[in-house]
């Protein structure tokens, strides 16, 4: 291999490495956290909001009551329907 040809190959390989290496390093994940810094209170943005929990709790009480009242009403209607059907089947006295 002539010197000229060797230098072309080496230059191409070196420039490829430089170009690809910068891309590869750019895609690396950031370095892991080296240490934890304690604070006295949770930052405001990270705090779990209380209002949705409070509203959900109150809404659940209402919803549970409504569902239960509806279930009683449905069962009562079923019993009344059965009573009417049975009364029609019974021979007159």
């Amino acid at each position, binding site marked *: 291999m002539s010197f000229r040809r060797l230098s072309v190959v080496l230059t191409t390989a070196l420039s490829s490495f430089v170009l690809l290496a910068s891309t590869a390093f750019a895609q690396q994940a950031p370095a892991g956290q080296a240490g934890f810094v304690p604070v006295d209170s949770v930052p405001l943005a990270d705090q*779990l909001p*209380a*209002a949705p*929990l*409070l509203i*959900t*709790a*109150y809404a*659940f*009480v*209402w919803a*549970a*009551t409504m569902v*239960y*009242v509806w279930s*009683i009403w449905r*069962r*009562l209607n079923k*019993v*009344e329907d*059965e*009573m009417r059907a*049975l*009364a029609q*089947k*019974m021979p007159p006295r």
Partner: protein
Amino acid sequence: MMKKLFVPLVVIAAAMFAYAPVMIANAPYESTMGLVQKIFYFHVPSWFAMFTAIAVCGVASIIHLFRNSPRADRIAEAAAEIAVLFGLMGLVTGPLWGRKAWGVWWQWDAKLTIALLLEMTFISGILVRKYGGPGSDKLAAAVGIFGLAVTPFVYEAVNIWRTIHPLTSVVPTLGASMAAPFWFCVAAYFLLLALLLMLRVNLGKRQAALDELYLAYED
């Protein structure tokens, strides 16, 4: 008498439940928990209503077991179902409060676990009635009495065992500004309990009348 009272009581209960959020909103914030502590105003009354329903169920179950009273059985059946309803309210509102106050939805400590077991006891009573066949009313009555016997332990669990749940001393030591909305909510829940009991007992009466009609038809 009960029929005449029913509608006015429904109106009063609806008005109380509509006004309760206003009183709760005006109550002061608790120093460490802030806004989420306001779940207390309907979490604790749910348990009070459940314990009262259990007391009604237990006494009616004792009467039914020893006197074979169908009326007492109907009351016990109704009260057991309502105890499950209020227990469910307590078991749902509690974790919503705990998620913010403790950082977890649920903790397997003595108070929470025994409360869950109490709820499951009354669910089992309902299942026994539904699928237990002949004599299941007596079995369900026994379950009701067992539930009544367990209830004081559920209430006192926080004083007996170490738990993360607030102590029973919280309610008697409430300041006036917190006590007023709290006892207002308790009254609303007791009214709701009475109304649901009346409705459910009436359903039991109609079911008993239907059973008698079937017997007459078969004869």
